[in-house]
Each structure stands twice: as C-alpha cells, then as structure tokens.
C-alpha cells in the first residue's frame, strides 16, 4: 500500500477532468491522450511527464506501446529519444522535408565566356581558355559549367603534362538549339552580324600552336 502522505501521485484533487481516482479512462482513450500530448508538446516527452499529465490511474507505458505499433509503417513514427518519446517523420520520407525552390539566373560573364571558348575551341585546355580570355578561370566557373552539364572532360592533350581538355556536351547543344558545335556561327558570321570587329586578331597567328588547330575548320568557310 502506498502511503497517501508520501506518494506524490496521491494528490489527484487537481485533476482537471475530475476523474475519480479509481477509474482510469479506457486504454483506447489513453492512447488518444498520449497521441495528442506527443503531437503538441514542443519537446520529447518522458513517461514520467506523461504520467503527470494524464488523468490518474492511466498507464501511459501501455498506451505508448499501442500507439507505437499503430504508427509502424506510417508516414510518421513514435520514436524513443533517450528517455523520452516523440513523433517523427519516417526516415524514408525525409526527402519530402526539403522544399526545392528553383531559381533561374543568368550565367555570369566569366561562365558564359568560358563556355563560349569551349564551344568554339573544343577540345580546349584550361590554360588555353585563360590565354584566350586573358584572365584566369576560376575553379568555380569550370565546376559550374560541369555541373550544368554543358561542358565535360574531353580526351587528354598529347602535350607535356597531358592536360585535360574540355568539350561541350549534348545538353549544351540541346540548350542552345544546335545540332552540332559546327553550327555555331563562325567568326565571319559574327563579323557580319556586327558582333565582332573585323580587325585582324593581333594574336591570331600564335593561337594555333597553342591548340591542336581543332577549331580551325570551324571558322573558315
């Protein structure tokens, strides 16, 4: 027998529902209570908390076990966290908790220039890109284009250091509505379209020994 003077649970007069001390709610009702408490409480709830919050005579452990079974295989599960319990998203549905926001941005100037150089000069090495742009090409720019799947690694150049080359991808052609990189307007057409000044390139002659001349036929004719 517990001593009513020392048993902390004996002071049931504060029970909000005026449940009689000796009639606990039916188990189904207790399960509902545990469910509501676990749902609404901001922190995981210990068995002790549950006992304290539920009407007198309840057996939260039993209710909890039933609730746990009920949620097995559901979209959320009753999980144990240390000594406490909480309702959490089923692990396999975590992907739903990411809300993807698609944002469309214009490609940076560095990226579009690098892309243009790859497109017109492919296969082209990073050193060549830098040479043509006249400024360094950041790792991030290359990575971005690789990630967009607009450029990919081509074959290695058979020159000292065997540098990797870059070429454009099918996705690139798709995006820009080209059937073939050769469909890119040549320098002459750029010139005709007023996109290119017609002065001879000061460094044009030296461009070729750097590359393998691969792009040459692309621009002539």
């Amino acid at each position, binding site marked *: 027998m517990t001593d009513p003077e020392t048993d902390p649970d004996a002071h049931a007069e504060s029970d909000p529902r005026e449940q009689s001390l000796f009639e606990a709610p039916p188990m189904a009702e207790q399960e509902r209570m545990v469910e509501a408490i676990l749902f609404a409480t901001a922190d995981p709830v210990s068995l002790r908390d549950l006992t304290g919050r539920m009407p007198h005579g309840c057996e939260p452990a039993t209710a909890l076990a039933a609730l746990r079974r009920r949620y097995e295989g559901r979209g959320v599960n009753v999980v144990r966290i240390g000594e406490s319990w909480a309702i959490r998203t089923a692990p396999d549905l975590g992907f739903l908790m990411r809300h993807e926001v698609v944002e469309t941005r214009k490609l940076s*100037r560095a990226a579009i220039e690098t892309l243009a150089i790859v497109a017109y000069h492919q296969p082209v090495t990073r050193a060549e890109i830098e040479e043509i742009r006249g400024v360094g090409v950041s790792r991030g720019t290359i990575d*971005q284009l690789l990630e967009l799947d607009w450029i990919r690694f081509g074959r290695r150049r058979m020159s000292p250091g065997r540098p990797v080359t870059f070429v454009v991808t099918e996705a690139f052609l798709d995006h820009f509505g080209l059937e073939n990189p050769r469909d890119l307007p040549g320098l002459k057409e750029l010139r005709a379209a007023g996109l290119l000044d017609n002065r001879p390139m000061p460094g044009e002659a030296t461009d070729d020994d750097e590359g393998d001349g691969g792009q040459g036929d692309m621009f002539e004719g």
Partner: protein
Amino acid sequence: MSDVSAADAVSARLAAEALIVDVDGYEGPLDLLLNLSRTQKVDLREISILALAEQYLSFVERAKELRIELAADYLVMAAWLAFLKSRLLLPPDPTEEGPSGEDLAAHLAFQLERLEAMRDSAAKLMARDQLGRDRFARGITEDVARVRRVTYTATLVDLMQAYARIRTKDEFRPYAFDRENLLTMEQALDRMRPLIGFMGDWGELTTYLPDDWHSEPARRRSATASTFAASLQLVKEGHVELRQGETFAPIEIRRKST
C-alpha cells in the same frame, strides 16, 4: 409612450452612469442604446424608440454635467435622436420630404438588432475551441529545408556576344578617330549621287570605290562599308537597285528604271 416603468428608468440611469465610470465597457452611443434597450427587457422590434430616445437624451444631459467633454459621437447621436423624437411626436406632414419618424425608428431598431446579433456572434466565436487553448498544433515542427536549386540560362546570342567580346577585347582602346583611313557615309553619298546618272546595267559595287581607296586594306574596308551604306541610302531614296546573287557573292548596283 409612458410604458417605461420607474424601475426600468432607475436601472437605465444606473447603466447610464456606469458609462461615465467604465468607459471601456461602454464605447459609444449605439452601444449604450443597446444597453438601454436591454434594460427594457423587450424584444428590440417592440422597443419604444421614443422612450429609448428620451432615456438617451436625459443621459446626455446628465453626462454633460458629469463630464465636460463628450465625444462627438455622442452629440451626433443625441442630435439625431432629438430629430427622431420630434418626428415621432409631430403628426406626419404629407408635403414634407424626407423619411418619416417611423422609418427612422425602424432603422434604429434594425441597427440595434444587428449590433446585438454581432455581439452574440462574437461571443459564439470566442466560445469555440481555439487553437492554442483547446486545440493544438504540432509542437515539434520539422523545418522544411528550403533547398534553393539555381538553374542558369544563357542564350545563343549571349554566347556569341561573349565570344565576340573576347575576340575583340585586345583591340579596345581609347576612342579616337583616325580620319585619314576613314571614308564617311556622307562622303560616299556625295561621291555616288553624281554617278547615278551614268550607271548603266548591273555593275559591281566595288567598282564605285574611290580610286585611291582600293589598295590599302584599312582604307578599302572603310570605303566599301561607306559606299555600301550610301548605296543602301540611295535604294531607300528610290534612285538605285542592289542585288546579290548568293551569300558572299559580289553586290551589284544599277540605276532604278523609272
């Protein structure tokens, strides 16, 4: 219209005086009227508007003694009720325009009833199970990670312009005219106009370049461009015709037959 019992008048006065004390509870004239009508313990539709108006006006009288300032609302309502009272007391004059006292009284009754209905509804609303008091939302919320997926776009024109920009970058320099190698369109036009009369059948445009602009590439390019532009101008003016057999074929010019 003396159907207001003395007891009611007393309680009405108490309610009226409460207004002075408890401004929060009694906000305004209609509000007060509603309370006065309640003290009559009758259906709003059967209320004696006249009695109500009298009670109200006497309240305003006393309130003036108790409080120096009365809200404008009260005074407007008082004036309106005084008007209403006069309308109700005087026999209707068929020649007079405007609403009858009965119409005004009916409207006031409607207003009071509507306010009462809103009071009731507000009480019903507040008696509902409220979120955060009777019903609860999820306590442990799982933040939805906002994954920002950025897609980049560029057009073919962007691409070509970028390439053109790179290819011409080396030549950017402070703007300066070197006039010696430049044939302006105006000069070309001046040169072409007198020649139109002598143009026969189709002839290559290049033959119309000034003699001393043929050899040196820079001068030749400028002369070609300005002569072409000038001939376009002449086409536009209806003096000549231009044609080109195919891409990159020589451009030919002739005088337009009239």
